[in-house]
């Protein structure tokens, strides 16, 4: 079934089809429409979800954690400062191994206050122990949300999943997308049947007890192992999803990478713009390609290193500053992943698109000209750079 949906409506519709037990709901731009659409489904009796309106995102995530611990399937949606206010709880959900599902509509973090898109919110949560899956467009936002629960709830994984899409660019733009039948979605997602939960009267459960230093290290290693194991689960779920949808997903998407010498590595909606530019460059005979990271946590380091092994020069595009003074978070991961390769490309980092700064095909072409120059001369020039800001010519 084909429908014209905004990214927000696509995710809300996926939630409706899943019919979760609980939603912790608190609005924040640009994710507000998700709880808004969902409230309508609740009011119309189209779902039987317990819709809990709270006073903050700290509480919406607390509701989700409590519900999930009780044995229910819980969802929420947020953006930017809302995600920041959940910070403490993100770690609680992950460390208690509660597979909450959160739609993160990426928006810049304050300050100065800004409501437009970049990835600083979810990148700030990259070490919280959540699986992070990013969408390029509305279709992927819908598909990723449906795949989230079979990944996170798997008994050998038990990790919360954050599905991310770009604020406004994806969340508010209306596109024609393919929806699955509700029965197919319910069948795919299945029932949430944890082995133990608070409301199981046969054996009462204590969740999140105080973990002294004699135990904490072991529990963190268990969590790290689960994150490592989630990589193959993500691929397995994607393969099963392809059977019902015909749409293929991996840890990242390789676009025209077969013989690519120059490449971009990026996340999210910018991939659409970059693909158009890559097509144009290919017509001009430039061996250009791109890799769109879909799964950032767990980071597909080995696979990415393999995919980049034949390239000569690569620009890693970060839509979050990170303020490490050594490059953005995606750059740090990518450079680290390439370290073990014998042959590796020249690598530069470009921080771009902060707070909704536009990213155009002209920009992509400019980056590829820079990469061609690096390939030619073997000189990278400054490695950690920014794109799109106004500044005096140096």
């Amino acid at each position, binding site marked *: 079934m084909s429908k014209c949906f905004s990214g927000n409506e696509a995710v809300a519709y996926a939630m409706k089809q899943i019919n979760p037990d609980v939603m912790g709901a608190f609005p924040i731009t640009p994710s507000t429409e998700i709880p808004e659409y969902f409230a309508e489904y609740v009011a119309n009796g189209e779902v039987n979800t317990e819709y809990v309106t709270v006073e903050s995102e700290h509480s919406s995530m607390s509701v989700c954690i409590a519900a999930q611990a009780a044995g229910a399937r819980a969802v929420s949606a947020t953006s930017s400062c809302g995600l920041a206010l959940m910070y403490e709880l993100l770690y609680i959900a992950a460390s208690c191994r509660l597979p909450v599902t959160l739609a993160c509509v990426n928006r810049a973090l304050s300050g100065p206050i800004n409501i437009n898109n970049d990835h600083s919110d979810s990148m700030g949560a990259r070490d919280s122990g959540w699986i992070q899956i990013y969408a390029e467009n509305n279709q992927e936002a819908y598909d990723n949300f449906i795949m989230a629960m079979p990944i996170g709830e798997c008994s050998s994984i038990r990790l919360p999943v954050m599905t991310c899409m770009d604020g406004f660019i994806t969340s508010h733009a209306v596109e024609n997308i393919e929806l699955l039948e509700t029965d197919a979605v319910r069948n795919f997602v299945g029932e949430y049947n944890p082995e*133990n939960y608070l409301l199981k009267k046969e054996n009462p459960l204590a969740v*999140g007890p105080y973990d002294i230093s004699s135990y904490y290290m072991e529990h963190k290693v268990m*969590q790290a192992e689960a994150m490592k194991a989630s990589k193959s689960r993500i691929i397995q779920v994607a393969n099963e999803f392809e059977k019902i949808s015909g749409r293929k997903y991996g840890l990242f998407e390789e676009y025209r990478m077969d013989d690519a010498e120059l490449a971009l590595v990026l996340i999210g909606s910018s991939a659409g713009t970059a693909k158009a530019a890559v097509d144009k460059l290919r017509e001009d005979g430039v061996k250009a390609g791109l890799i769109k990271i879909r799964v950032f946590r767990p980071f597909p380091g080995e696979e990415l290193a393999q995919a980049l092994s034949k390239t000569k020069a690569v620009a890693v595009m970060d839509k979050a500053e990170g303020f490490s003074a050594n490059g953005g978070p995606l750059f740090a991961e990518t450079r680290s992943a390439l370290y073990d390769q014998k042959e590796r490309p020249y690598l530069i980092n470009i921080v771009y698109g902060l707070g909704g700064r536009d990213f155009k095909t002209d920009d992509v072409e400019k980056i590829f000209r820079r990469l061609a120059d690096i390939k030619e001369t073997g000189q990278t020039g400054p490695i950690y750079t920014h794109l799109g800001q106004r500044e005096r010519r140096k």
Partner: protein
Amino acid sequence: MIKAKDINENSVLEDLTPGGEIYEPGTARDFNTGTWRIDTPLFLAEACKHCMLCVPFCPDSAIPVKDGKRLDFIYMHCKGCGICEKVCPFQAIEMTMGGEVK
């Protein structure tokens, strides 16, 4: 299912539960949490009228009751807070210095 009594500070991670979950109620009873007591209450049985006032005031599970009788302290759980001594109307509890039971 892993039982709380089988978990200790030498357990390897394969023998622990995800997130430190505990699958039974009332397991605090099984653990020695009285090790950091710096004052210790003494139970003077001859002065005790078994009014039971100390029992609900004890913040831990250090005062056992059996067949309507208040029994001696369970020092495995007593933190030495001294609340029981304060609420006892009959001076049947005496606080002593140090964590050792004299």
